[in-house]
């Protein structure tokens, strides 16, 4: 349609704005029709920046999320538990890589994203700033943290942005193993000695409230909610997903014979849902702003890993250069 192209060239600012508006309407119509938006398609600048922010935060969370559990790889109680934990932590690295790739399709580079994480500019999930003092914490993380992640992530498989949705399908397929292995640890501990059961209960007490915070601020205070829902990046509100998580988890805790650390928790027969106590949003804000128990430790570990790995990245490039030069000279003279 070259005639349209000619029109745009000579158009006034107002006419161009009108053009952008029409493009945005077309975009919204595609989203409303459940069409997937792909990397090279036209999209509003805010859609792009919202996705870059969300996908990269998600990727950073997967990468930082390796640290609390990685802490227990050398101390897992059996060889099988060690193998399982290594596989799980490797999956988290993989999830981070899928998601960084998805973010890169939007025109941001891997190095920019990593810089944002290491400089402390980018956020990641508040949950990974809590410590894992016992083996039971590994169980509680799998059961609750990965459980909450699944609740958040399943709707993202239908996100309007194709590359993100496809990455999430792969992530979700692998995440179920994480949750089940965590519950399996909790099950074994809660059927064990009184000391082991106490260990499981204490881990549950530590992780329950931070897990509920993973769904983000309450709907009334959420700044990104409505726009993301209109663009079908987000399908359900924070509070809806949090409620669903509580309703799913309460019977699982009962089966373990453990008590959720919330005296206000009760079944509401009329509404067919669990009521639960107030979440400490001040704590959430503190952790998000960098003042949680492990924020400094986590960032220091990532910075250290990046700095210590620099020579490997450089050596691999030098080797690739040398191989290429050798191949080229063989082609030329050989």
């Amino acid at each position: 349609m070259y005639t349209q192209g000619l029109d745009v060239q000579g158009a006034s600012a107002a006419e161009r704005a009108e053009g952008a508006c029409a493009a945005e309407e077309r975009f919204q119509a595609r989203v409303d029709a459940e069409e997937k938006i792909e990397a090279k398609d036209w999209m509003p600048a805010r859609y792009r920046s919202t996705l870059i922010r969300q996908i990269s935060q998600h990727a950073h969370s997967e990468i930082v999320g390796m640290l609390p559990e990685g802490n227990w790889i050398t101390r897992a109680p059996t060889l099988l538990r060690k193998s399982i934990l290594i596989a799980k932590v490797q999956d988290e690295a993989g999830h981070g890589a899928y998601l960084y790739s998805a973010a890169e399709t939007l025109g941001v580079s891997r190095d920019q994203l990593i810089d944002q994480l290491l400089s402390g500019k980018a956020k990641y999930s508040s949950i990974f700033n809590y410590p894992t003092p016992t083996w039971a914490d590994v169980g509680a993380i799998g059961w609750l943290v990965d459980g909450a992640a699944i609740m958040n992530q399943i709707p993202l498989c239908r996100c309007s942005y194709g590359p993100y949705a496809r990455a999430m399908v792969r992530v979700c397929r692998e995440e179920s193993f994480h949750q089940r292995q965590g519950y399996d640890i909790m099950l074994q501990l809660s059927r064990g000695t009184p000391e082991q059961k106490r260990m499981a209960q204490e881990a549950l007490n530590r992780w329950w409230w931070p897990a509920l915070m993973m769904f983000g601020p309450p709907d009334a205070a959420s700044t990104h909610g409505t726009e993301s829902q209109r663009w079908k990046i987000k399908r359900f509100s924070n509070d809806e997903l949090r409620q669903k998580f509580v309703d799913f988890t309460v019977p699982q805790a009962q089966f373990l014979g453990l008590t959720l650390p919330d005296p206000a928790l009760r079944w509401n027969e009329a509404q067919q849902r669990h009521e639960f106590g107030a979440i400490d949003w001040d704590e959430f804000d503190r952790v998000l702003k960098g003042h949680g128990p492990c924020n400094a430790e986590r960032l220091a570990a990532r910075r250290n890993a990046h700095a210590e790995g620099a020579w490997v990245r450089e050596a691999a490039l030098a080797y690739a250069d040398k191989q290429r030069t050798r191949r080229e000279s063989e082609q030329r003279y050989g």
Partner: protein
Amino acid sequence: MDDKRHWPLYEVFVRARGGLDHKHVGSLHAADARMAIDHARDLYTRREEGVSLWVVRSTDITASDPAEADSLFEPARDKIYRHPTFYDIPDEVKTL
């Protein structure tokens, strides 16, 4: 940011089973193609998802322009006679 060089981006294609096509699954960074294959193994086939891998430098792919999709694909739209169901064959005629 700086002038240091970075590992380039590769697109990864996996053949799930013998007899199927290689299918695009995602991308990754690697210093060279050999390393891209190794990374692709670790990243995309941890659960027996494939029996063969292809990697291609992302910059070597030429793609059609989504903005031109209409003019590119529209000419096929009114050629319904390319489809077998276009032809009305009497029921008496078998094996056609």
